[in-house]
Every structure is written in C-alpha cells, then in structure tokens.
C-alpha cells in the first residue's frame, strides 16, 4: 500500500516537473488568450453601436438564415424568393452556399436544445469572431506541422489580430468569408497531415473539411487548384511516394463526390475549366504510379520505348478530349471572374459590373502594408527558410505563398486568402530568430538569462506572441556566443516592433474595419458623437407605411438591405446574376423623367429609393456611383444611353451649372436634388450647396411630374419617392406642334365665342330635312 502511495506521489511530482506538461499548459493558455484577444478585437462595432448586422451581403445571409430557422432546412433548399428580382424572382436554395446558414442554424438549434434562448440574430452577429478563434487554432496546427509548435503559437497569435483577416470577420459582418478561412486552413492542415502520414484517415478528413469549405464559400476553387499543384510540383521534384498517391487519390475522389452535393456547385467540378487541373493531376498521378509499377517488369530499353509511346498517346488523347469537350460545350470556358485573374485587362473592358465593385480592383502596396504591417516584410524570410530546408509539406506552403500573393496583387478581395499564409511564414521567421537569440549560451549568466526570459514572457503575453519552451532544451557547446548584451538589444528591438504591430492592428480595426455602414457616426469638435441612423429609419418607414407587395426600385447595392430590413420586394440586389435587369434599372435612373416613367411602369415600380449624401457630406451616395449606372446601362442599351452625354465637353463629371444637360435632367439627379435648391445648410454657403461634391447644384427649381416625394429621412440620406399612378385624364400635350401655331389658334379662339364644328344649322321658318325640302318645293309650286 505504502509502495503504491509512494509511486503515485512520485508520479505527481514527475508530472509537476515534467516539461511536457508545462508545455501543453502554456500552449493551451496562449491559444486561449489568442482566441480571447481575437474575439475582443472584433467587438468594436458592437460596443460602439449595437449588436447589428453590417453592410450589404450579410443582410441577405441573415435573412436566409432567419428563413431557414423558421421554415426548416428542406424548405430553405427549395425556397423561391419572390421578393427579389421582381418580376423574375430568385431561386435562393440553389444559388447560395448554404454552409454559413447551416452553421449558425445548427448552433441555434443546439443552444435551444440546452434551453438557452438566443435570438438567431445574436448568433449571426457573433459567428465570425467565434470562428476567428477556431481559425487561429487551425493555423496553429498547420504551422506546427510545417515548422514547430513554437512557430505555431506565433502564427495563432498573428492570425488572431491581423487586420487582413479582421476586415472580414468583425462582429456583425455575417459573411461566408468569416467561416471559410477557418475551413480553408483546417483543410490545409488535414491535407498536410495526410501527406505526412499517408493515412487514408487523414485524407478522408481533409476531404470532409473540403466539403465544408465548398458549402461555405466560392473560394474553395483555391483549394482544389492548390492541392493538385502541390502534388504536381512534388512529382516534378521527384518526391513521389506512396503516401502522396494515397492521400491525393482519396482526397480527390471523396472531395469531388462530396462537393457535387452542394446544389449551387452541382456539376461544375466535372464541367468547368477551373476544376480541370485537379482531374488532370489525378490522371497524371495514376499514370505515373502505373509506370513505376510497370518498371519492375521491363528492362531499361523496353521501358524507355514504352514510356515514350505511353506519354505521347496520353498527351494526344487528353488534348483531343479537352478540346472536343470544350467545343461540344460539355466543359464551360473560364468564368469571367476567374478569367479576370489571369488576363488582368479583361474585366476592365468586358465586364463593367465586375469592374465596378471595389473589391475587384488591384491592390496597391499601401493596402498590403495596411492589412499586414510588419508581417509583409517578415514573411518572405519564412518562405526563404522553407525553401532552404525543404520537405514535402514546405513545398506546399511556398507554393501557397507565391500564388496567394499573386492573386492578392490582382484583387484586393483575395488579400483574405493571402493573410493566413503570411501569418504562418512570418511566424516561422520570428520564431526562428527568437530561438537563436533567446538561447542561453553563457553558463555564467544563466540566472540572469532566466530573469530576462521571465520579463520577456510578460511582454509577450501582453503582446500575444510567444514561445520559449525550446530555448532551454539544448545547451550550446561553444562558449563564444554573441554575448548577452547584443542578444538583449536584438530581442528588445524585435519585441518593440511586434508591439507596434499589435498597436497597429488595434488601431486599424477600430478606425477602418468597425463601422457597420448601416449606422453612421459623426464626431463633433468636442469629441461628441452623433449617430446618423437614416438607413434604418427609411427602411422601417417602408416596412410600416407601404403596401406589403409594394415594389421598390433602387440601385443594386441596397437590394439586400431593403429586403432584409424593409421586407419589401426589390428589382435588383447585390446578387448580381442578371446583368440586363440591372442595366434596365440603370437606364431608368439615367434617363429623363418621362422615359424613366415608362420603364418604371413596365417594371411595376411603386417606390424609388435613392441615397443622397449632399447634406451631410456622405461620399458613398448614388450620385457618386452614378457613372457606373450609366456605364452598365450603356453596355445593354447603347442606343439610348451614352456615357459621353453625362460629361461636360471638357470631359468632367459635374453637378453644378456647368454640368451637362443630360445629367442635370436625368431621374437620378432630380430625385437626389428635389427641393434641395431651397435648402440653405449654413450662412457661408449658398442655397443648394452640395457638401459631398463641394459645389452649388446646377438645376435647382424643378418639379416632378410622374413621381412625388414620399419620405426623406432626417439628414436627407435616404429619399423615397412614390411613382404616381396613371392619371385618370391625360393632360393634352402637343410637343410636336410648333408653339407659334398654337398661339395663333389661341388668339383666334380668344376673339370668337365658342364654336361647335359640324353642327347642323337650323334655318328659321324652314324644315331642315331633305324630304321636307321637296315638300316645301311642292308647296311652292302649289302656290
């Protein structure tokens, strides 16, 4: 008994002093703190404003989630939304990635099962911050596989606070990307694990994770191209092995079958060119494995002959098959957005609707630095050391870095896919440097070094970066180290830069990425804050004061918000699937009032909603977006709308009196500036002074014929107009008759008294009829 007691006590003691145990505890704590820091950094918007869904797309996701929670999953899959794209409608179930809705729906279901009554909106608002913590977990695991656990901790801390990822995952930004980055990194981690172990288990896991990614975001194409590329490069490098064969074949087949289960994806994985690389590599890998197998049975000369013949045949067959299938229409050519990734001039010329979205613009170095700060300088170092100490999985991370940086350079939006790999590689760089300089190599000052480490630990926990377990493990042999002073200087300098990074991240998050854009805030001179809640005011007005089936026309940016908050039917929305419908709305906005009225009558529009920022100086309003409306309309109706007409002869876009006549009389102008000419904002500026564009407007006193003002919000940010019904009795307008003529007529009319034409004349004393005339004649003859 005493013996066992002793053994147990010793076990406990050894466990207490077991470095492995402390290591896990430290790891756990650092990861928990990273999660917490990442979560809290994303709450600026909720604290400043309230728990509200942001921007545009999230409103649709929220509406869809709400529908799914109320009506069940299968009804959601079959949902035909008749409140969007009037009169076409939209099949929602087949045109969304349902992963996001299903994720938050199942969280909601689970919490309700535990009798925790949470509204679905709160889950939607906080989903992205929670998933950011899971992203940092998966980045930790990924980096651990690539380099070591210390670098993994750095990477987890970096990804938790880096602005490039926060930009898409603040609380309230309820969008696909929020969960997709987690799915992306987790799939990569499982893939690396599969390549390392060669186990079917891990590759099936990665295929399942890939399935989750496919259900969540269209960016899954990035995975299905990068993984085959990894395999292909490994083949080229002569690093083929059984492990790679197993993992890739399992991953590809299971992943392919699973991805086709998503209704929106459907048969795309076997029909579009974006997915063909994966199929090609699958065939190549099998061919290569087969050749390796054949090689065992043949002599060298025979094999060479066989090899050349086989390769030629295979290449010819594949080429003919691809060309034939493309020609016959079974394989679709590259879709526009992907095409614009390769041929960078393509989108600018051919697809104005893609070019109009600011997310599809190329990236300046400023936005790289803004989103990644010191990591953008440090991550090439990580890439350098990954190449220097190359192995199977590091090939992957280097390829990822190169391709993601190319894509991020082409499109601002794809900065999001670059961010995780930048964190991983920068973490490797920092971890390696710290390993070198935190190593305690002077035996004399071991005590001192320990103290210093302690100090640094505090710093770094504050800074949310840190690893130091490796340091004490191996004692250096040579006494001629760098010296403690040099080392401390270097460590302190690097820590200061990391602190600067943390501060930068917080500042960027707070100042740039935390505005809900539904609610605006303006700051007065004394730091006082005014909330401009015009958007919700207007949408709520629509909800309360219009008919349930009323159709609202607005530019597509506001479609989701009107549907989500106002619960009214819209013509076009942010799901820009039908270009010609959008062009029709653009045409209505850029035509004059009577032409627009005809379009609006054909589209059954009841209300028109415009965003006008001239009173408060809000720059994202419809007049500033107007040229895109004109361009998109011109693309479909080149006869009626010409961009040139909206510029001055000098080629400027002006709303003041020098602006072009077409602009000053188009519907958008009139709706934005109706009654604005009478409004004097302050004493220094004249009446009708537009603060956004800083000019006095050119067309001040006009009336609307076919529309009437229905509602204007407090700061004039949203203006709603009612489209008048057809008049009972049409006013007579004779536009083609010259004015002089009508004047003369009116003059003549003025002199005479009223005249009735073709009036039968009555002559007194005689009967007017023909018969009576003859009788009178006869009576005459009688006389």
């Amino acid at each position, binding site marked *: 008994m005493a013996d066992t007691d002793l053994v147990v006590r010793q076990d406990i003691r050894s466990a207490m002093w077991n470095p492995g145990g402390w290591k896990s505890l430290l790891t756990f704590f650092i990861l928990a703190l990273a999660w917490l820091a990442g979560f809290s950094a994303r709450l600026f918007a909720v604290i400043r404003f309230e728990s509200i869904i942001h921007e545009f797309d999230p409103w649709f996701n929220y509406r869809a989630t709400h529908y799914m929670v109320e009506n069940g999953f299968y009804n959601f899959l079959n949902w035909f939304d008749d409140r969007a794209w009037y009169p076409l409608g939209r099949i929602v179930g087949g045109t969304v990635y349902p992963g996001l809705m299903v994720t938050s729906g199942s969280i909601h279901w689970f919490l309700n099962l535990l009798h925790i009554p949470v509204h679905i909106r709160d889950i939607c608002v906080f989903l992205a911050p929670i998933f950011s913590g899971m992203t940092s977990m998966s980045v930790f695991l990924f980096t651990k596989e690539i380099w070591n656990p210390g670098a993994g901790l750095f990477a987890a801390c970096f990804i938790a606070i880096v602005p490039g990822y926060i930009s898409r995952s603040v609380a309230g930004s309820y969008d696909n990307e929020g969960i997709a980055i987690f799915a992306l990194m987790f799939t990569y981690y499982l893939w690396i694990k599969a390549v390392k172990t060669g186990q079917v288990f891990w590759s099936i896991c990665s295929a399942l994770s890939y399935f989750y990614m496919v259900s969540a975001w269209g960016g899954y194409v990035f995975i299905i191209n990068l993984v085959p590329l990894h395999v292909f490069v490994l083949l080229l490098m002569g690093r083929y092995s059984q492990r790679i064969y197993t993992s890739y074949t399992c991953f590809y087949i299971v992943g392919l079958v699973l991805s086709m289960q998503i209704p929106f994806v459907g048969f795309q994985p076997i029909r579009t060119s974006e997915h063909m690389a994966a199929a090609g590599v699958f065939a190549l890998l099998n061919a290569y494995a087969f050749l390796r197998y054949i090689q065992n049975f043949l002599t060298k000369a025979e094999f060479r002959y066989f090899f050349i013949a086989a390769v030629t045949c295979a290449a010819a067959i594949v080429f003919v098959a691809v060309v034939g299938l493309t020609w016959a229409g079974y394989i679709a050519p590259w879709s526009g957005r992907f095409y614009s990734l390769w041929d960078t001039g393509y989108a600018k010329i051919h697809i104005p609707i893609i070019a109009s979205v600011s997310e599809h613009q190329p990236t300046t*170095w400023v936005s790289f630095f*803004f989103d990644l700060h010191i990591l953008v300088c440090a991550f090439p170092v990580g*890439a350098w050391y990954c190449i220097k100490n190359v192995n199977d999985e590091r090939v992957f991370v280097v390829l990822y870095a190169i391709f993601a*940086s190319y894509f991020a350079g082409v499109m601002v939006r794809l900065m999001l896919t670059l961010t995780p790999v930048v964190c991983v590689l920068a973490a490797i760089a920092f971890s390696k440097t710290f390993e070198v300089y935190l190593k305690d190599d002077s035996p004399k000052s071991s005590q001192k070094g320990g103290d210093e480490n302690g100090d640094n630990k505090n710093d770094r926990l504050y800074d949310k970066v840190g690893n130091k377990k490796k340091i004490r493990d191996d004692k250096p042999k040579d006494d001629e180290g760098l010296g403690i002073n040099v080392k401390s200087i270097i460590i302190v300098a690097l820590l200061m830069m990391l602190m600067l990074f943390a501060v930068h991240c917080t500042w960027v998050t707070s100042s740039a990425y935390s505005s809900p854009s539904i609610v605006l805030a303006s700051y007065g001179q004394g730091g006082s804050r005014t909330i401009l809640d015009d958007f919700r005011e207007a949408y709520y007005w629509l909800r309360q004061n219009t008919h349930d089936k009323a159709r609202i026309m607005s530019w597509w940016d506001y479609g989701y918000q009107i549907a989500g908050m106002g619960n009214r039917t819209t013509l076009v929305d942010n799901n820009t699937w039908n270009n010609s419908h959008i062009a029709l709305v653009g045409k209505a906005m850029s035509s004059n009032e009577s032409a627009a009225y005809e379009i609006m009558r054909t589209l059954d529009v009841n209300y028109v909603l415009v965003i006008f920022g001239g009173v408060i100086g809000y720059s994202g309003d419809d007049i500033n977006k107007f040229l895109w409306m004109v361009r998109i309309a011109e693309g479909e109706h080149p006869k009626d709308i010409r961009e040139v007409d909206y*510029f001055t002869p000098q080629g400027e876009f002006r709303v003041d009196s020098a602006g072009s006549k077409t602009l000053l009389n188009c519907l958008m102008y009139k709706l934005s500036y109706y009654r604005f000419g009478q409004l004097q904002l302050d004493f220094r500026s004249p009446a009708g002074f537009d603060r956004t564009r800083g000019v006095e407007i050119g067309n001040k006193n006009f009336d609307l014929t076919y529309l009437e003002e229905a509602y204007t919000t407090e700061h004039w940010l949203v203006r709603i107009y009612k489209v008048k019904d057809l008049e009972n009795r049409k006013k007579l307008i004779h536009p083609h008759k010259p004015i002089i003529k009508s004047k003369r007529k009116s003059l003549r009319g003025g002199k005479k008294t009223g005249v009735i034409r073709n009036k039968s004349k009555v002559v007194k004393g005689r009967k007017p009829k023909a018969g009576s005339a003859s009788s009178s004649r006869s009576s005459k003859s009688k006389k």
Partner: protein
Amino acid sequence: MAAYSLFTALVGFLVIAYVCAQTKKKEDSLGDKVHQLMEWNNKKSIIRLKGDKFRQYVKSPPRNYSVIVMLTALQPQRGCSVCKQANDEYQILANSWRYSQQYSNRLFFTLVDYDEAVDIFQSMKLNTAPVFMHFPAKGKPKKGDTLDINRVGFAAEQLAKWVGERTDIQVRVFRPPNYSGTVALALLFAMVGGLLYFKRNNLEFLYNKTSWGIVSLAIIFAMTSGQMWNHIRGPPVMHRNPNTGQMHYIHGSSQGQFIMETYIVMLLNTSVVVGFIMLNEAQNMKGDPGKKRILSLVGLGCVTIFFSLLLSVFRSKYQGYPYSFLFK
C-alpha cells in the same frame, strides 16, 4: 401674246435643260469622287490628302459617304511621339475596315499631315495634333464629330466605337496578333532548354535552393509592392510639380502610387528581409564572435531602419496614421 408664250416656253426649256445638266454634272462629280476615293483606297487603306483634295473630297458638299480624318504631324522633325502611336492605332482601324466583310464606299479613312497642308490646319483653327474628325455624309460636322482624345484615348477599339456612334457603321477591330510576347516566351524557353542541354552532364544547379529561393522571393516582392497595380493601371513613373519643378516620387494619397514609389517599397522590403536573414545567419557563421556580433547588429540595423523608413513612407501617404518608429 404668242411670242411671249414662246419666250416663256423657251426660257422654261432652257432652265429645265440647265437644271438637268447641273444635276447630271453633280451626279457625275459625286460618282467620280467616290470612284476616285475607291481607287485610292484600293492602293492604301488610309488616303493621304493635301489641301485641294481635302477641300474637294471632304469639305465640299455633294457627298454620300462619311469621311474620318486624322489631322496629325508625322514628320520626324516635329517630334510628335503621340502622333506615331495614334497613327498605328488608326492604321489598325483602317485596315480592319478595308479588309472587312462589310467594306463599302460609305466610309473612308483619310489623313492630313501638317507639313503637307498647313493651310487646312489654319483654316480649321487647329493648333494641336493629332485630331480625329468625322465629316458626315450630310451636313457639317457637329460637336460630337471631333473625338475627345483626352478622355477616350485613341485605342483602335475606342476609335471604332466612336466611328460606330457617328456613322452607324460598326467596324470590328482586328488587331494583327502581337507575336512579340510569344516570340519572347519561345526565346526564353529555347534559352532555358539550351542551357539545360549544354549542362546536361551537370544538372546540380537545378537543385540549388538558393536560386529557387531568390526566384520565389522576387515574385513575392513584386506582388506585395503593387507591381500588378502598375501593370493594370499604368501610373506615371514619377510626378513633376509643374509650379515648383520638384520631383515627387511618392503619390500623395493611399489610393494611388507611382512606379518609382513601388520600386522604393520593394527595395525597403528586400532590405528588411535581408536584415532578418543576416540576423539568423549570424549564429551559423564560423569565425570569431566579434564578426558574429557585427553581422547580427548589422542585421538588426537593417531590419529596424528600413522598417521605420517603410513606416514613414506609409505615414506620409496615409493621412492621420498615428504611429511611427525611430523616424517621423
């Protein structure tokens, strides 16, 4: 009385005959003009016009064809490089029209050179070149009949669009395929292939990680310093302030950048990376500790100084950014 009526008839006849002759002459002249233009056009897709011909074929009224005129200065002593580029684009457009399916006598492309016809430029009060003008089949040129080069540019596609707007004749621009890219690519491949062939006994260099590392880092640096933005947007190399004559290498706003600026940023990024690598390599270096110390401190200096420089460039572009490191 009879004499009077005879006289009237005679006069009437004469008038009729004269008018007939006149119209016939007119028709003749029109037919001749079109014929002549077609003949010229068969030889060359752009018809060069001098003063008289310009007045006869373009300005004088009986016309049933549209004429596009490029007024330009192509003589080398004029030193107009824009004119040359415009001329190339114009040539592409004219050739596309000349060899297209719908080629007809409704539209002609012509050219007037300043040195051959100064008077035309003077009479039209032009003092810039090149100018694209459209002379419609009926009536005089209107406002929109002069192409706004500043806004639209003179790419052949834009010209074709403008021509389509003015004349309702859609010219599909067919660019002769640009083989220079293909040739360069083929040359590159040939060079790489040749190199591999000559070195076939010693392919060790393919396994050299340093060169692969440098290539990969070069791609990353190019992308993170915004070279792709330059490629798509085509900004100027740098900007000279017209008032002070001072050169600006850095664009003032965070929305834009100059080519020179991206090179500076690329250099700064590279220096930081080199600094980091020196920091790491200092430990592996063999030799006395003094050298190690120096290398590591130089590395640290590279990292901190160039990073602070980068930060201050960023600060100068991003108004209201509150943080700095070492330098303002």
